[in-house]
């Protein structure tokens, strides 16, 4: 059989797998994504503190943050909140105040994209300020939509 014969069945199987993902799978994946995002943010802060404004590590961290900011829109399908009874730090407000949450996601995406550009410039003062602004956008979302830690 031709290879092209298998394209449709593979696409259908992939779609079926995505549809079949349980809330637990979604939440687990989301947590892993945020942990990776947190690690990239830590690398950013550590590198800025150490003065590595032109380091590859900082550029890579900024790129990871920017990619996460673009991908995050797909991390919150319906049913993956507290009502799933799976442990999650995502507050119900993400879905009950969806417009506000979307605005917070947009703010983060804008800040992350801007930060990636700032890092590419190598401008020390702009990078320091950009890292703070990025943190502020994270905090803004966390304050409203994330259960506080411990």
């Amino acid at each position, binding site marked *: 059989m031709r290879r092209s014969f298998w394209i449709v069945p593979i696409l259908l199987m992939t779609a079926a797998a995505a549809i079949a993902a349980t809330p637990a799978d979604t939440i687990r994946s989301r947590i892993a994504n945020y942990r990776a995002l*947190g690690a990239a*943010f*830590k690398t950013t*802060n550590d590198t800025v*503190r150490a003065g590595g404004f032109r380091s590859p590590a900082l550029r890579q961290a900024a790129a990871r943050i920017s990619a996460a900011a673009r991908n995050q829109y797909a991390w919150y399908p319906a049913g993956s909140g507290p009502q799933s009874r799976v442990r999650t730090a995502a507050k119900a407000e993400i879905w009950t105040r969806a417009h506000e949450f979307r605005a917070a996601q947009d703010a983060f995406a804008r800040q992350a994209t801007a930060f990636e550009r700032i890092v590419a410039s190598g401008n020390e003062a702009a990078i320091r*300020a950009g*890292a*703070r*602004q*990025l*943190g*502020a956008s*994270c*905090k*803004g979302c*966390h304050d409203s939509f994330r259960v*506080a*830690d*411990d």
Partner: protein
Amino acid sequence: MTKLRVRGSGALAIFAGFAAFAWHQAGIGEVTPSASAPAASAAALSKEEADGIIFERQQLMLQIDRDAKTLGMIAAGTAPPMKLAETTRSIVTAAKDSVEAFRQVVPGGRSKPEVWSQHAEFLQSMEAFARNADAMAKAGETGNVSAVTGLMVEAMPCRQCHERYRGSKPS
């Protein structure tokens, strides 16, 4: 003339004594890091910058919390000791970064008013934490779990500090 000289000398001595007393009180030459002027104050920062600093502080504390849990498991023997050095290094790094993060007067997060009204005292506590964490990290480099365990209580005064300086979790 002699009386004038005596009175003048007396006045000079009193003035010199007062100057010496004032000099001592100012603590010139005895400045400790915690007594130096804060790097920035909230009044000079935008809300965005302040939020960025607060978020950074929160992330540092979360890192210390995660490392403390790992260290606890290693000390309890429920986790292998391979990560002992890495974990104690991470704690001291975050402790030192926290000192700098809190040196800036930026109220917010879960910091109680006492952090800022008793800022010098608070920073002394943080600096002691960083020093003791450094001693623990040096022990961690040797791979000796017992040595690290012996230093943990002094190096990780989390509860005492939190009771005094950290507000309750927001609902």
